[in-house]
């Protein structure tokens, strides 16, 4: 095999887009997700998160651009799908079948299936294997679904808002299971997880992709994002992008100007501004706010009477 073609990224997309009639659900999406990372996919509702995940798992066909996933192009071939675990938002399972039956079914449908691992994992969580999954709690059902996805021994796990419907305790338990699976895989498992719960993501994820208005706003590892984004506060002045920084969001009061910027030079210093660190939540909100402002401007322009 040619070593040069093997990418360090589990996912690479270039200009990926999906159009439904005249509406672009995802537009010009270019991201790289490094192998072994746990990546947070965030953005407002309708930003294209679910669309992106569906394109990656080949449940939908791209209208534009290309994707390279685990060094393959998305397709419905068993060879492609066997390496990818996907958990849809609605956690589709057969309500009348119990976990044991789901595991047995997985064994029939998959080449590389580890029934023992799935059974052991669920036993450790004290989940009744012989109860129909429709009668389990939401948290237990999510754990069964995760166990099934992991039994495939995937190299890439795509999770679409896996914890959205869970209570706080079940959510933490789910994230613990996920983090343990990542530890066990020892760098061989890449996870992309969409969620609105930013505090959770900050715990478990080490990489972030921000989508808004159907476009990529940010794609990098969280440590870099935290270093390169700062809040600048100072006496009011009309601020514009400079070669030192790009303004993500700005707000003004009568006397004060506050900027959330992305620094091009991390050693940047200007005595006009008081500089402060930001957390992931502030960064995400700034990018989401920016895209909303743009949308408002466009709407306002279109709405001129």
């Amino acid at each position: 095999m040619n070593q040069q073609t093997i990418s360090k990224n589990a996912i690479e997309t270039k200009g990926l887009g999906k159009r439904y009639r005249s509406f672009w659900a995802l537009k010009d999406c270019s991201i790289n997700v490094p192998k072994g990372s746990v990546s947070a996919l965030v953005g407002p509702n309708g930003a294209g998160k679910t669309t992106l995940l569906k394109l990656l798992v080949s449940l939908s066909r791209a209208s534009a651009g290309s994707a390279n996933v685990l060094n393959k192009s998305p397709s419905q071939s068993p060879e492609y799908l066997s390496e990818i675990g996907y958990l849809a938002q609605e956690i589709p399972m057969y309500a009348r079948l119990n976990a044991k039956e789901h595991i047995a079914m997985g064994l029939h449908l998959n080449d590389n299936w580890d029934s023992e691992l799935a059974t052991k994992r669920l036993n450790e969580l004290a989940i009744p294997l012989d109860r129909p999954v429709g009668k389990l709690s939401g948290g237990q059902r999510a754990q069964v679904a995760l166990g099934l996805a992991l039994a495939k021994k995937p190299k890439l796990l795509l999770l679409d808002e896996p914890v959205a419907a869970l209570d706080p305790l079940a959510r933490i338990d789910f994230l613990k299971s996920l983090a343990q699976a990542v530890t066990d895989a020892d760098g061989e498992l890449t996870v992309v997880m969409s969620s609105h719960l930013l505090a959770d993501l900050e715990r478990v994820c080490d990489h972030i992709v921000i989508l808004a208005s159907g476009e990529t706003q940010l794609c990098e590892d969280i440590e870099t994002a935290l270093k390169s984004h700062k809040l600048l506060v100072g006496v009011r002045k009309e601020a514009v992008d400079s070669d030192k920084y790009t303004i993500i969001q700005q707000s003004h009061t009568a006397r004060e100007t506050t900027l959330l910027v992305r620094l091009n030079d991390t050693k940047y210093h200007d005595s006009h501004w008081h500089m402060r660190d930001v957390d992931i939540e502030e960064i995400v909100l700034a990018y989401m706010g920016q895209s909303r402002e743009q949308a408002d401007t466009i709407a306002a322009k279109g709405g001129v009477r």
Partner: protein
Amino acid sequence: MITFRLSTHSGVPPYLQIVQQVKQAIRLGILLKGDQLPTVKEVVGMVAINPNTVFKAYRELEMLGLVEGRTGSGTFVLGRPAGPPPEIQNAVVNSLINWINEAKKAGLDEESIEALINSTLHNIKRGNNESTNNK
């Protein structure tokens, strides 16, 4: 054995919280020389955190000379961080308890006590910085 807690609203990065909690446990004598730190998988299962964050915290503790990673067997406590031994800390804690009781008697609630401690610490720190910077 040490139990980690993780706060996502403290503004302190998760890896640093782990570092601080290990340091604190060693200072207070909860962790002694030769004790084994929980494995990465155990920590991950305790607090739902990215394993790389734990690796990073343990590497940092190693660099500080507080712990030692032994290949295949785990991470072990080497010694105490700079600072007074546990007995002296206990004495300080006792006087702190007295002080807090006094503050409560004076009518301060927990929030004001916390704010008072934080702002005093901050002022002292700033005072020191300013004098060293000759400002």
